[in-house]
């Protein structure tokens, strides 16, 4: 292999790297043009009596000097090929920062929650702390994943970020944590709401005719499993604790379907809130109606009560935020 051969391999190798992911036609054109350019330069070098080393050096130098332009060209090609890019070509950086500042806070918050979740079991060596730590860490990681996922699927990514703010609200006495949570929650919901209304890359809205109430179906299925499990366990408290959440969800879902909502997030938030509220009512009914053997201190009842309570509070925040941010946005028919 001669020096110009190696130089040509460098030129075309680099071109294959920076054209990766570019539209096929554009990529092929650039590669063919460079192939022709290399051939012509080598032939010209032979005609003017340049040494092979000089020709090879010139070819490599032209590639090295053009690398910044190649990368800018690639960036422009990728942006152009994304018809519905969330960051259109030429968008001012200031505008991008204005629209996405909350992602930086989400990154900090996600990291904090992950560290907190991992550290909690080491601080407090109880089963509850371990479960809480896992949940907090999982939501923190989910938030970080959501930030990365937003480029491919904005709706799922932003929803993950919004859900990830959940653990900040129980820490209300710290003040700053729930404030950070709200600072991320509202723009994340707004973002997910915008995508729901407008559609986005990687976001597939089912046709209206195919929309079934999957939440209701899932709740009924879970309720069936809970009833079966309660029968097997044979404990009244466990039955109340296991069956109340899905039953509350069924009731809440049936109730909110009758209420007109401006968008899907408002509907989800209201469902979560009503589920928490319905669960509280159901547990209260069980407490009042049950005999003294019912012990609400049992772990299952406490755990489900805490979870649905948190879900209810979170749902209320989501609902209010969705109603506030919806303004003129209405869910497509």
């Amino acid at each position: 292999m001669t020096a110009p051969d190696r130089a040509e391999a460098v030129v075309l190798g680099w071109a294959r790297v920076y054209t990766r992911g570019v539209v096929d036609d554009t990529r092929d054109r650039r590669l063919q043009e460079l192939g022709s350019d290399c051939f012509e330069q080598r032939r010209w070098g032979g005609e003017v009596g340049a040494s092979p080393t000089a020709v090879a050096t010139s070819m490599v130098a032209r590639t090295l000097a053009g690398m910044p332009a190649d990368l800018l060209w690639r960036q422009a090609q990728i942006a152009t090929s994304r018809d519905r890019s969330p960051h259109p070509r030429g968008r001012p950086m200031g505008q991008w920062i204005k629209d996405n500042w909350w992602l930086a806070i989400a990154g900090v918050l996600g990291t904090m929650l992950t560290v907190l979740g991992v550290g909690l079991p080491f601080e407090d060596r109880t089963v509850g702390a371990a479960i809480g730590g896992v949940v907090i860490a999982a939501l923190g990681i989910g938030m970080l994943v959501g930030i990365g996922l937003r480029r491919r699927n904005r709706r799922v990514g932003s929803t993950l970020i919004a859900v990830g703010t959940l653990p900040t609200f129980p820490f209300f006495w710290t003040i700053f944590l729930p404030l950070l949570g709200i600072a991320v929650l509202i723009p994340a919901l707004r973002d997910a709401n915008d995508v729901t209304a407008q559609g986005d890359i990687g976001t597939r809205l089912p046709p209206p005719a195919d929309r079934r109430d999957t939440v209701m179906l899932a709740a009924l299925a879970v309720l069936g499993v809970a009833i079966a499990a309660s029968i097997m366990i044979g404990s009244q408290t466990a039955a109340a604790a296991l069956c109340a959440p899905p039953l509350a969800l069924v009731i809440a879902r049936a109730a909110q379907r009758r209420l007109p909502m401006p968008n899907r997030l408002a509907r989800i938030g209201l469902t979560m809130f009503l589920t928490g509220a319905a669960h509280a009512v159901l547990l209260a009914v069980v407490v009042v109606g049950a005999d003294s053997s019912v012990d609400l201190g049992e772990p299952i009842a406490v755990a489900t009560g805490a979870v649905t309570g948190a879900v209810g509070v979170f749902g209320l925040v989501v609902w209010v935020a969705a109603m506030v941010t919806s303004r003129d946005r209405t869910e497509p028919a």
Partner: protein
Amino acid sequence: MPRRKPGTLLPIEVDILEAGLSGQREGQDEFHGFELARSIAGDGAGRKLTSHGTLYKALGRLEDAGLLASQWEDVELAHQDGRPRRRLYTVTGLGERRLAEWRQEHSLAPSPRQPRWEGSA
């Protein structure tokens, strides 16, 4: 990177249009990438060949703006000559007008860096 005013030309774009028009005046209507780089570099004594990235990015930009048009050379012709086919460019009427406007705005006669066109190999 600062955004430039619409309609303005960068030095490399001026060089490309001037090289293309220079060739057209000498009866060579079409030019390819390396030919252009060599033409812009002149005799090669003082200036180096334009880098690949800068050259082909500028060519694409000028084509997008309608100042250049391009097409692939006939495969048979390239095959007979034993080389890869060339992408052949021509300066459009709009490109010629835009260059004239640019010269007028800059009160310039043809650029002192005007490329020297050499016949195609």
